[in-house]
């Protein structure tokens, strides 16, 4: 008894010290807040002291633009060649020559592409997957989205190989040179993944103009990080014995990498490829703002004109494309992980690749047929149907019958929740925030973390973006909070019942592959533009990790421990509160962290539906092609994400260390 008492004393003392420290800190910040008439400089960052970082960045970008236009132009030209080929092949037809003697070579026939998609699905995952993938393509064709969808697909098909090759080489380099990984690659990857998608578009727009090429470059940059990470992870997880074996077999360094290590790491690499494809799809949609065209552009136009029906249709086509690409690439990754089934090596191409040959033959035949039968070249109007009027009617019906209810809900939410929180956040003294976050950083991760967190927060203030930063924090915070309130209980239920899990898993899997754009459309239909719409769309987008990690964390508590708890006479409630929850908490917090980051990414995109935060700042900068303003706002957003991420990770690491 004395032993436990003394250890608990030793444990609780530092906690009590921190309690006192936090009480003092909060009191100090409160004092600043109350004395804001005298200490105005500590509450609102003085306008005179704003550092014009945005102007500097603009000047730099202009310098690059005017001095390196030869470079950007040749890059555009070089990348334009394969891109045009892909777009022509899938969507636009080849036009050779000009005027009267122009020869038009047709694009691939939609019938052929649908059948090829079916064959690819069947080869990778059997009849079921074939039907799903072929069905998704057929859906796109029948709903009249074919050309747009193929434009999107063409961009992806060029951007993805580029991402994979680049990611592979950068990953290999980072794996070979630990210093490069620590000093260069890891921070760059963190930044690349937290900078909002919008912010990528601005410099691309400036350097490469409003064209599919700049959209493709933006996509390539955005979608590469997971491949780098997958390469690093895969290579570091190759068993050391396999490494030793390659040495003992007398491999040169190159043989070792290409013939032993990379093939052994293939399962991890294929996971990276899947993520690259999904991120590329997400980005191509957003990059429609700088000329990518395709489905994203359709959504954008429809949203701007508030044509919800059309937006919904294009959005659903994106969903179909996303599901087809995701399931197909996952099935291929799984097949690779299992290795191939033995086949006799036979000399003829047809025997070796029966599906590929069949697909090529069908594409060729249907495309040729398209020259004579128009129904093969373009989807005939007669068999397409549109659901736009249906959606429109549905929305009108809801608006007519439920307008009062929805409006009352909306107004109540704004008046009672959103506005007070917003006022509190925007009035929060910037110096106090720097101080409190720094203190949290010090408690969780020592001096270095404290310095990092404080410096990033200071950046948001000195660039004059403090108010907008806090507006972002407020909306993101509320959305993430509600997402957790919804997601954690669902995860809890899923962890307790296999039936619930079976229902929940496919839903969150699907939610996860949808490009962020798609979440806005149905919400806008009901709640029109504004903070409420942004919040609801963000919650729907960000709820997935909260569910997934909670479920996973609780399920991976070792059964032996739960049995031990039962044997020592715990009730169900005690078992949960004293055994399962503490053990699963680090994992759950990881989910909360992910939820916050996803909410942040989504809030920025919600600038399209009229929020007044950093996202709007980037959005305005984009429409004005003001690179400095956009990049600085983008960095501020990234820094919010990095501060949250580092604090949560430090906390989780501490909790993990305590649990051993």
């Amino acid at each position: 008894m004395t032993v436990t008492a003394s250890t608990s004393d030793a444990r609780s003392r530092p906690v009590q010290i921190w309690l006192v420290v936090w009480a003092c800190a909060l009191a100090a910040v409160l004092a600043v807040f109350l004395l804001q008439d005298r200490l105005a400089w500590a509450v609102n960052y003085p306008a005179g002291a704003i550092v014009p970082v945005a102007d500097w960045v603009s000047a730099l970008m202009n310098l690059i633009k005017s001095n390196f236009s030869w470079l950007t132009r040749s890059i555009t030209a070089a990348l334009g060649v394969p891109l045009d080929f892909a777009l022509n092949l899938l969507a636009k037809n080849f036009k050779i020559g000009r005027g009267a003697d122009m020869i038009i070579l047709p694009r691939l026939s939609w019938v052929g592409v649908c059948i090829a998609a079916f064959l690819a699905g069947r080869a990778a995952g059997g009849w079921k997957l074939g039907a799903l993938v072929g069905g998704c393509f057929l859906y796109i064709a029948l709903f009249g989205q074919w050309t747009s969808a193929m434009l999107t697909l063409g961009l992806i098909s060029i951007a993805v190989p580029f991402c994979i090759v680049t990611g592979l080489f950068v990953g290999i380099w980072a794996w070979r040179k630990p210093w490069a990984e620590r000093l260069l690659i890891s921070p760059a990857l963190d930044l690349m993944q937290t900078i909002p998608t919008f912010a990528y578009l601005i410099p691309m727009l400036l350097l490469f103009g409003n064209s599919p090429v700049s959209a493709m470059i933006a996509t390539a940059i955005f979608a590469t990080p997971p491949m780098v990470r997958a390469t690093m992870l895969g290579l570091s997880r190759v068993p050391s014995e396999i490494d030793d074996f390659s040495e003992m077999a007398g491999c040169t360094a190159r043989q070792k990498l290409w013939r032993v290590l990379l093939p052994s790491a293939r399962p991890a690499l294929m996971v990276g490829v899947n993520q690259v494809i999904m991120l590329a799809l997400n980005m191509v949609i957003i990059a429609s703002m700088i000329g990518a065209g395709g489905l994203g552009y359709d959504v954008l136009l429809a949203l701007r004109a508030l044509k919800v029906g059309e937006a919904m249709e294009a959005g659903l086509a994106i969903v179909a494309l996303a599901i087809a690409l995701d399931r197909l690439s996952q099935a291929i990754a799984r097949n690779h992980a299992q290795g191939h089934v033995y086949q006799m090596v036979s000399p003829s191409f047809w025997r070796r690749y029966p599906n590929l040959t069949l697909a090529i033959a069908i594409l060729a035949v249907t495309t040729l047929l398209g020259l004579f039968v128009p129904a093969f070249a373009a989807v005939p109007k007669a068999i397409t149907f549109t659901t736009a009027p249906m959606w429109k009617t549905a929305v009108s019906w809801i608006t007519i019958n439920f307008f009062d209810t929805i409006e009352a809900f909306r107004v109540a939410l704004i008046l009672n929740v959103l506005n007070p929180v917003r006022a509190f956040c925007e009035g929060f003294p910037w110096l106090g925030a720097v101080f409190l976050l720094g203190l949290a950083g010090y408690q969780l991760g020592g001096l270095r973390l404290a310095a990092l967190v404080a410096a990033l927060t200071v950046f948001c203030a000195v660039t004059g973006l403090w108010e907008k930063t806090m507006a972002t924090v407020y909306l993101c915070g509320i959305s993430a909070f509600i997402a957790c309130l919804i997601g954690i209980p669902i995860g809890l239920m899923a962890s307790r019942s296999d039936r619930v899990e079976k229902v929940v898993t496919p839903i969150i899997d699907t939610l996860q592959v949808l490009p962020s754009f798609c979440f806005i459309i149905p919400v806008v239909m009901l709640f029109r533009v504004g903070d409420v719409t942004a919040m609801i769309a963000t919650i729907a987008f960000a709820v997935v990790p909260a569910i997934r990690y909670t479920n996973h964390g609780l399920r991976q508590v070792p059964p032996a421990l739960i049995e031990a708890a039962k044997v020592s006479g715990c009730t169900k409630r005690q078992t949960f509160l004293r055994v399962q929850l503490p053990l699963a908490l680090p994992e759950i917090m990881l989910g909360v962290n992910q939820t916050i980051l996803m909410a942040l990414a989504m809030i920025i995109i919600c600038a399209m539906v009229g929020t007044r935060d950093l996202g709007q700042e980037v959005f305005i900068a984009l429409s004005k092609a003001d690179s400095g303003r956009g990049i600085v706002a983008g960095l501020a957003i990234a820094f919010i994400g990095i501060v949250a991420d580092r604090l949560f990770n430090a906390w989780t690491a501490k909790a993990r260390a305590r649990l051993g």
Partner: protein
Amino acid sequence: MADTTDQVPQAAGTPKDARPIKLACYNVWKLFGANAANFIRQRGGAATMAEVAAAGLVGAVRAVDLEIRQGEIFIIMGLSGSGKSTLVRCMSRLVEPTHGKVEFEGKDLLKISDAALIELRRHRMGMVFQNFALLPHLNVLENIAFPLGIQGQDRPTREKRAREVIELVGLRGREHFYPRELSGGQQQRVGIARSLATKPEIWFLDEPFSALDPLIRREMQDELMRLQTMLHKTIVFITHDFDEAIRLADRIAIMKDGEVIQIGTPEELVVNPATDYVAEFTRDVDRAKVISARSLMRACDGTEHGGVVAPDAKISTFSASIVSAGKPFAVVNGSGKPIGEVTPQAVIDLLAGIERPGASA
């Protein structure tokens, strides 16, 4: 009795001394930690365990001297963490020793160029791993042919050789299976075949059977003995299993905390354990299978003999007949001349585990 025990190391050692030294370690050290190389150089290649620990270093291999002769099965035995795996990696330069000399056929292995090392590993060294280390994306045939492909051999040549070794290890019919489709024992047969494909002279086996079930392990040990009678490789075999060591070894080096504490034939270790630690291992060994007539014999005292045995015959091979005969057996050398005798009582004592003063050392 003193004369008989003195004979043991000599007698067991003599025939092997004629064989050339294939691989040798001289004062090999592997220390982990900052400035480990300076630390050991400044001390002239000698340091106690306490000194190593005080410098904040971890001594994985300390002051190891050993010589491995051509064609022998040399076993390095130690519990986990004793440094045996690190030592074998120092011998093949998978791990760079911190200090000391590793000689391969008299040449300093640590001084040769990278290109020469690659050449050496491609043609003269082979290694088998505890967890098989098969490449998951290649089938059995491709895995076995892989080291030959690395050397640049064309496909027909290397597949022909691969089929030969597949035959040798009894895997015919499984050429096109993938590693995950095979049982552990079969996977290790692939590992063995792969390491033999290049016809290595020295063969490193790093706990090759430790990941296998006891029954399979025994089967694989027999398989190894069968292969060795055909191939006569120089084998360096790592194990933590003393029974396995006794079964297979010509000589055993016992390691503890990075040091080799005794090198000898199984019989020498059983009869003359250098420390209590070694004695602890040998206690449960079936002595009749390890100890030979030579260790048990005494000078003839003129009684009638019930039979003859060779000096190297293990007691277990004649224990039943000597006990039923009830008379001492004469121990005769190659030319048929008696050099001593073994009494039934000595054999019974040995079988019963009774130690009589002077009966054995």
